């Protein structure tokens, strides 16, 4: 029987030795949207040892145009993305150990991933990226920033204490997160182009060929036929609070509080309890049923309708309230049903 990795092993920079190294590696992907699904599929097909996927969302119709792991059936079932991704990935390669986490990632959750070999950024916001950056630098884990919007994509490979970190490059979290997929759209080729760059860097790291890494900050606009590379080595700062001489890891040490966040451009508010609390889905469903409309559930979440608002309760206690950007209104609904 032909070895399923034969073509990858024929590639001289990987070879059988590289393939064995890939097989021993554990990768964490944060976010299972467009970048996350595409990155995950490549890693699983490439035969890594273990993949951990963290995502806080569920599969929606608007995802199917570019989020390649998901199907219409996942939308009908309201499956969380991490769960749907795991199911699909296990069909692609059953030899890879895949862990799915349906949760919002904060510093306490990240601590479980200190032993990973690589982190792939597939999130959709800078807050999480600055947290990942602090974590990765503190525990000396390489990570690969990737982001896209419209036909524009950007990526950079961060090797703690060797390259500048995201904090060195950006200094602050942009106030409004810049433009997002939900306001100016996104086309699938932009996603796969960012993923191509992230994954070739990932393979280099997994086979331990760090000499071959790109080293520059790379950005492109596929529609405008533009590509830019900037050598940012000089932006590494000894005063950086994340990777400098006296690090305080400001984003990692923030206290965990009940967090209310407007999900940019999605007309949705997320409310997360200070500490994840495991919700008994069946009991909640029984109590809610007389009071709300269109109540449905699966093992991971309950969803129902209150007037204009679609409400999702996840098993970890998080609630998404669709149909509003108003934090006060969202909190009112939250406390009415979950307070």
């Amino acid at each position, binding site marked *: 029987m032909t070895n399923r990795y034969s073509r990858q092993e024929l590639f001289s920079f990987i070879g059988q030795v590289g393939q064995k190294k890939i097989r021993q590696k554990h990768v964490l992907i944060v976010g299972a949207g467009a970048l996350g699904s595409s990155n995950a599929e490549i890693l699983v097909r490439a035969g890594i040892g273990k993949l951990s996927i963290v995502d806080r969302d569920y599969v929606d119709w608007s995802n199917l145009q570019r989020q390649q792991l998901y199907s219409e059936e996942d939308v009908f079932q309201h499956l969380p993305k991490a769960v749907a991704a795991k199911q699909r990935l296990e069909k692609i390669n059953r030899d890879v150990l895949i862990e799915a986490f349906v949760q919002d990632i904060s510093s306490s959750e990240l601590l479980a991933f200190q032993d990973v070999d690589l982190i792939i950024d597939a999130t*959709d916001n800078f807050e999480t990226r600055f947290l990942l950056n602090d974590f990765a630098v503190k525990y000396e884990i390489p990570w690969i920033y990737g982001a896209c*919007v419209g036909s524009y994509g950007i990526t950079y490979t961060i090797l703690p204490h060797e390259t500048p970190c995201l904090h060195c490059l*950006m200094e602050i979290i942009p106030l409004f997160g810049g433009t997002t997929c939900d306001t100016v759209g996104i086309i699938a080729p932009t996603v796969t182009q960012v993923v191509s760059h992230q994954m070739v860097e990932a393979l280099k790291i997994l086979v331990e060929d760090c000499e071959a890494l790109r080293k520059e900050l790379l950005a492109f606009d596929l529609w405008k036929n533009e590509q830019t590379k900037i050598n940012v080595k000089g932006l590494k700062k000894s005063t950086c609070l994340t990777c400098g001489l006296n690090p305080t890891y400001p984003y990692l040490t923030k206290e965990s509080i009940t967090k209310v966040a407007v999900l940019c451009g999605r007309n949705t508010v997320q409310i997360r309890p200070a500490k994840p609390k495991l919700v008994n889905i069946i009991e909640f469903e029984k109590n809610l049923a007389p009071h709300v409309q269109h109540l449905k559930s699966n093992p991971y979440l309950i969803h129902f309708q209150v007037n204009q608002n679609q409400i999702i309760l996840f098993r970890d206690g998080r609630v998404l309230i669709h149909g509003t950007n108003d934090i006060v209104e969202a909190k009112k609904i939250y406390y009415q049903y979950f307070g």
Partner: protein
Amino acid sequence: MEVPDHVKTIESLLIHLGLQGKIVVVEQNGVILKKEDYSAVVKSTDSIEIVTFVGGG
């Protein structure tokens, strides 16, 4: 890239490109500029690279 005559500095170039207030890295003739240097004059022969950070994924 052609730019209008009123674009004479990095700052005005960023405004022209709709990138004012965004977090960017600007390289002029191979040198990365600090924010306080965005008043630097832009010549038509300059090689300018600009990268904007975006958050989507």
